[in-house]
């Protein structure tokens, strides 16, 4: 019980900090960086649902991020649709494409699934890059409107956009939380654990995998649509492999298959990236070895490492105070999702 309360407290503090951030640091540059990080976090949460909980490492998510972004751009600029309708449609259209991809991709497993989705992601990038009439090709897509007013609320200022993105982030985290701690979430974890075992207890794994795949893509394309309306310029690069590996690194550093991993990983990596800006591309020389070590010693990232350390500590405490089992059992439960 204590651990759960503590976890809730930390979450509440983080939310409070995020809410107060524009007041504490009234600096447009930092505000911009923070908003962008939130958008990445949403995309990483999407990836986490599939790769972290269901155990299917998709490398097509940058592609779907781009589909979400470009669909919003095309629907608002070329088709002249109402912003929020276009926003909603871009997530739905991207998810539908995801559904079609999933029908085939989910027949493969493990490495094959990763390679297959890597190819899908690259094809999406190529289509965006080459389809000049629709996407503007290498020149990119300009003139995307920022989010339309909702009643009296306008989203023209950086601060209001910050809060809009924060709102969507909190919504995604809340939905993720509800999914992960439900039977559906346990079903996904069961599939990750052993698909055959899941089959033998009567789970129709194909259906569940498909739902998790589509949900995961829905979140990621939501991030893409937010990105388009925030940056207001799109180039085919956002669907490129390097963005995919950024997402993956955020997730791995933070902790794959943990609730707070995407937040921790994205914040950590974007800020380190900023600090090492002066090294230009040479910073990859530093990132590479660090990542390798992290994956070897902390396969579940920073969050996974902290949880592991905590359980170990409570276990040691328990050994010295025999009999007080009640507090540790709830702690052990935390190990699962963090």
């Amino acid at each position: 019980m204590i651990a759960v309360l503590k976890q809730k407290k930390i979450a509440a503090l983080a939310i409070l900090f995020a809410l107060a951030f524009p007041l504490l640091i009234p600096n447009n540059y930092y505000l911009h960086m923070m908003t962008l990080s939130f958008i990445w976090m949403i995309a990483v949460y999407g990836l986490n649902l599939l790769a972290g909980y269901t155990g299917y490492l998709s490398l097509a998510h940058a592609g779907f991020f781009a589909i979400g972004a470009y669909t919003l751009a095309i629907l608002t600029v070329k088709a002249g649709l109402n912003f929020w309708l276009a926003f909603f449609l871009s997530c739905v259209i991207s998810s539908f494409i995801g559904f079609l991809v999933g029908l085939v991709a989910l027949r493969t497993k493990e490495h094959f699934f990763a390679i297959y989705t890597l190819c899908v992601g690259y094809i999406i990038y190529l289509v965006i890059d080459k389809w000049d009439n629709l996407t503007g090709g290498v020149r990119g897509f300009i003139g995307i409107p920022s989010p339309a007013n909702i009643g009296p609320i306008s989203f023209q200022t950086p601060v209001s956009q910050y809060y809009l993105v924060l709102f969507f982030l909190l919504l995604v985290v809340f939905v993720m939380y509800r999914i992960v701690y439900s039977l559906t979430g346990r079903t996904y974890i069961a599939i990750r654990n052993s698909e055959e075992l899941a089959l033998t207890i009567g789970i129709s794994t194909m259906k569940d995998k498909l739902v998790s795949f589509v949900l995961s893509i829905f979140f990621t394309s939501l991030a893409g649509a937010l990105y388009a309306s925030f940056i207001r310029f799109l180039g085919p690069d956002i669907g490129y492999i390097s963005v995919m590996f950024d997402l993956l690194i955020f997730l791995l550093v933070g902790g794959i298959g943990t609730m707070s991993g995407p937040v921790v990983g994205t914040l950590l990596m974007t800020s380190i990236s900023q600090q090492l800006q002066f090294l230009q591309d040479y910073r990859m020389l530093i990132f590479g070895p660090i990542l390798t070590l992290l994956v070897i010693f902390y396969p579940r990232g920073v969050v996974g490492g902290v949880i592991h350390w905590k359980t170990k500590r409570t276990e040691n405490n328990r050994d010295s105070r025999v009999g007080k089992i009640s507090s540790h059992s709830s702690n052990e439960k935390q190990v699962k999702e963090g």
Partner: protein
Amino acid sequence: MLELRNVSVQYGSFTAVQNVNIHVHEGEIVVLLGSNGAGKSTVFRTISGLNKLSKGEIVFKGNRIDRYSPDRIVQLGIVQCAEGRKLFSRMTVYENLLMGAYIHRKEKEKIKQSLNHVYELFPILKEKRNDLAGALSGGQQQMLAIGRALMSRPKLLLLDEPSIGLAPLIVEQMFQIIKQINKEGTTILLAEQNAHAALHIAHKGYVFENGTIAVQGTSQELFANDNVHKAYIGT
């Protein structure tokens, strides 16, 4: 209740099981004996739909089930408790049991009843319900695996080597519990290498050798059969 007719299973060009006929009547405990690699597990995987057969047919309660998907077979009432105590090791004991009742997930009251029943059979699981499944001892993990299979209220329970790697005392206990589960109305198909203990509780048995059935008969007949005795029971 369950009938395998001339079933053959192939892995690529390798024939793992050839022309096997097995008949399980309602209420029975039927044991499949045989050494490693004789084809027992393949038969189990084929019944539960994880492997497809290359020849023959499987009939359960009048329905041909060999083309069904694994989850549909579970819904019909055939549940496999896999070899090697496969559990969801990062979930608690309680969560593992809940997952076992997946096909009844909308019937909360039914789940509660099954849960109480499993706790009665295995009091240790109730005691350890908040522990991670991976932290249990070997015997407890086997109990959890069986308990989880029971949560779906199977009509036919497939137990693949429930005694593997357990201490003799626990094995004895395990077979008593299997007998009790059977008495409560669940038909059981059991794969075992521990022929002595298995034949004690079984009604009849089939002996596998190289993917075919070498000998079959009632427990008494198998006990009396010299070859079986020498090969699987010892003196």
